[in-house]
């Protein structure tokens, strides 16, 4: 005999406005098997939960039905409450009368009728629920950080500091990310390298951190606490543990014409290179696309001059297999390509540059040694025009991104100020739509550019840039003065939108982590859970989750680390007991279930069974690994003999719900 308790939540007015909750609890109270039915404004509150617990005790309930919001919100809350009152947590069912009822209907009569039906279905199901015990899975106490920029480095340092081993996988030959290419950072105008390089060195020297540079994650299997990753360490043709980083090979290499990606193609490097002087690890790498020895077997100069004998032309990619408990994604961003914005003549004149290129031109370690010179003729520019929002806030999918890239207003103010500081005779114009500088000390920073440094901020937009006779004729609108301006500029700087790194999407597929249409990783909840992916065990750090500046990145990196530490500090995790279970007597070994399982949780084994006349039969039957199974139910549907069933969502239970709805 079942004794079911029904609790209908008002959810304030969220449900009660479109559903007559009192009627629902009254009608459901008459359902067969229900001995107690009530309603309350906020079932999830302490008072509400106390009500449930009291009813379990006073009425000796054998099952509980909560008619409230989506189970994704509070299923765990109510399961815990019932458990504390002594009822198995899997004898609790939630009927979603909010997201699936009150929030989509406007007519109260219709909403109420539907809520009653949904309640009936839940009651029919809970009567067939069996008490389930959650299993436990171990936790590998090691973290993987994918991406070695400031976000990845900070997260790794924080996790290492808590005593856990961390691996950083970085696809470039050095860690450091975009911050290594910056000159000064806002709002304090600290030198980027000066604040980053100590962290890079700390990461390299920390006992708990291992850096896989020039490597990429190739495959990830498993689940929270038990990930197994395959990392491809690409061949750099240099023995990392032997190379001293002296740089002699990079001076002697005869292949001088390789576009230098660190300086965004503004100058060249050699085929064997160290990306920049403070690279970590300080080890040379040979670019196989340009090395003459690797392509045609001729040369070998670097090998001859290397005193440490570190060059190895036969080096192969290495595949490393490693287990991890938590994975942090920190793949960062890139500025977009500007080929759809040629009204600004980006492809027609070398003096039209993107902001990151401008950053390199201002940087002392950049292609012009920190002197601001026009790329075309290496003269000093007297008039600079900055164009904001190139490719951001754009409604057209083919051209640009719909979002605001967040960092450009601040970095342009920075560029403008640094320029005026070094070269007070240069006129600087910034064409803006809005100036977005909300952070701490950010607005004061921008006002300094205008008031102290005399940067001309003009509300308007550049419509066309015409390169003519060595000048860039800029045609722009000035909306406040209501006129069209014609400025003869020497350089034009475009604040290009930023987008997630191209490795992000394939990585999201590998991790089954969700991603939005702009290729940013989605967080589990935009306000309350900003550093976790909805996929358990995956955490998000830095610009891969959304455009952000350095202060926010470091803050988020710490947050992601704390979540990872919370996971790694557990000795075991409770598994979901709602997993698939085959009935071995009905299984005919057809493998349909194994083929459809997306998690690889099903295997087959030969088992002995008693046959007629005291014979023994050997039959091939399915086996489910309850730790890997996610309870998706694909196998249950695929099974032709009905042998596979899902605990907590059995075929009988589903049919009972359908019958209750169709009544």
């Amino acid at each position, binding site marked *: 005999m079942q004794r079911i308790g029904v609790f209908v939540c008002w959810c304030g007015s969220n449900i009660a406005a479109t559903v007559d909750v009192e009627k629902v609890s009254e009608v459901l109270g008459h359902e067969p098997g229900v001995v107690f039915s009530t309603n309350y404004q906020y079932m999830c509150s302490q008072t509400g939960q106390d009500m449930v617990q009291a009813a379990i005790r006073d009425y000796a309930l054998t099952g509980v039905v909560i008619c409230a919001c989506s189970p994704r919100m509070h299923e765990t809350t109510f399961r815990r409450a019932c458990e504390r009152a002594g009822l198995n947590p899997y004898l609790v069912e939630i009927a979603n009368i909010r997201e699936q009822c009150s929030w989509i209907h406007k007519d109260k009569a219709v909403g109420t009728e539907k809520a009653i039906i949904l309640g009936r279905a839940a009651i029919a199901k809970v009567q067939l629920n069996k008490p389930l015990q959650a299993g436990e899975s171990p936790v590998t106490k090691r973290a993987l950080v994918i991406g070695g920029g400031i976000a990845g480095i900070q997260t790794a340092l924080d996790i290492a500091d808590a005593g856990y081993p961390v691996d950083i996988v970085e696809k470039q030959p050095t860690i450091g990310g975009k911050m290594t290419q910056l000159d000064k950072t806002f709002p304090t105008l600290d030198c980027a390298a000066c604040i980053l390089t100590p962290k890079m060195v700390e990461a390299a020297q920390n006992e708990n951190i291992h850096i896989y540079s020039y490597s990429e994650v190739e495959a990830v299997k498993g689940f929270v606490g038990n990930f197994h990753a395959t990392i491809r360490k690409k061949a750099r043709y240099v023995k990392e543990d032997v190379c001293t980083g002296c740089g002699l090979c990079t001076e002697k290499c005869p292949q001088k014409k390789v576009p230098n990606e660190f300086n965004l193609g503004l100058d060249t490097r050699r085929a064997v290179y160290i990306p920049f002087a403070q690279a970590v690890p300080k080890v040379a790498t040979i670019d196989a696309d340009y090395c003459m020895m690797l392509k045609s077997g001729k040369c070998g100069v670097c090998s001859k001059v290397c005193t440490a004998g570190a060059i190895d032309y036969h080096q192969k990619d290495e595949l490393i297999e490693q287990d991890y408990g938590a994975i942090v994604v920190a793949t960062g961003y890139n500025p977009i390509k500007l080929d759809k914005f040629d*009204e600004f003549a980006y492809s027609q004149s070398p003096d039209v540059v993107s902001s990151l290129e401008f950053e390199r031109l201002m940087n002392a370690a950049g292609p012009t040694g920190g002197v601001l010179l026009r790329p075309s003729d290496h003269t000093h520019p007297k008039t600079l025009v900055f164009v904001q*929002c190139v490719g951001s*806030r754009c*409604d057209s999918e083919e051209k640009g991104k719909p979002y605001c890239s967040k960092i450009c207003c601040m970095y342009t103010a920075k560029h403008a100020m640094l320029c005026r500081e070094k070269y007070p005779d240069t006129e600087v114009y910034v064409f803006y739509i809005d100036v977005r500088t909300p952070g701490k000390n950010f607005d004061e920073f921008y006002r300094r550019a205008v008031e102290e440094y005399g940067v001309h901020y003009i509300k308007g*937009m550049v419509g066309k840039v015409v390169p003519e006779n060595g000048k860039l004729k800029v045609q722009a609108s000035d*909306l406040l003065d209501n006129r*069209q301006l014609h400025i003869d500029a020497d350089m034009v700087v475009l604040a290009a939108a930023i987008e997630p790194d191209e490795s992000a999407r394939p990585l999201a597929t590998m991790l089954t982590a969700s991603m939005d249409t702009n290729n940013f990783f989605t967080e589990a909840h935009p306000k309350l859970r900003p550093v976790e992916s909805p996929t358990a065990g995956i955490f998000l750090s830095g610009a891969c989750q959304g455009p952000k500046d350095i202060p926010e990145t470091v803050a988020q990196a710490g947050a992601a680390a704390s979540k990872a530490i919370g996971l790694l500090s557990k000795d075991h995790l409770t598994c979901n007991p709602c997993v698939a279970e085959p009935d071995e007597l009905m299984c005919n070994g057809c493998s349909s279930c194994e083929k459809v399982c997306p998690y690889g949780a099903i295997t087959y084994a030969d088992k002995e069974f008693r046959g007629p006349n005291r014979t023994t039969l050997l039959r091939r039957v399915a086996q489910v690994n309850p730790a890997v199974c996610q309870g998706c139910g694909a196998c249950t549907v695929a099974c032709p003999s009905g042998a596979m069933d899902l605990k907590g969502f059995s075929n009988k239970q589903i049919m009972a719900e359908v019958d209750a709805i169709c009544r």
Partner: protein
Amino acid sequence: MNNSEILETVGRISGVNPRKCMKCGKCSGACPAYDEMEYHPHQFVSMVESGRIEELMHSKGIYTCLSCFACVERCPRMVEPARLIEAVRAVYLRQQGMDHMKPEHIPEILDEDLPQQAVTSAFRKYRR
């Protein structure tokens, strides 16, 4: 027609939603005819949104627009100011006796090499 009727017509025949405009001014920055107009493309959009149609209908910008589609191509919000200008001009010209150009004007401007498409275009743009 009263003001709200005119606004409704302009909205319907242009298909433009002026609220999409983020007031960036790129249309006016790109417009080659800026100096020949008293109200410029970005103002057109904001004046239509705030309902100041009368002034627009009597401005000379609606005849100096080249229909070159630079504003349409470069607007990041796909607002299409050129459609708006044509719609306001159409509403004005569709009234009785409001043709901007009369056939009598043509012989004096005609020269041997002028392609007839120029005359046809002008007639289509400046007359009902």
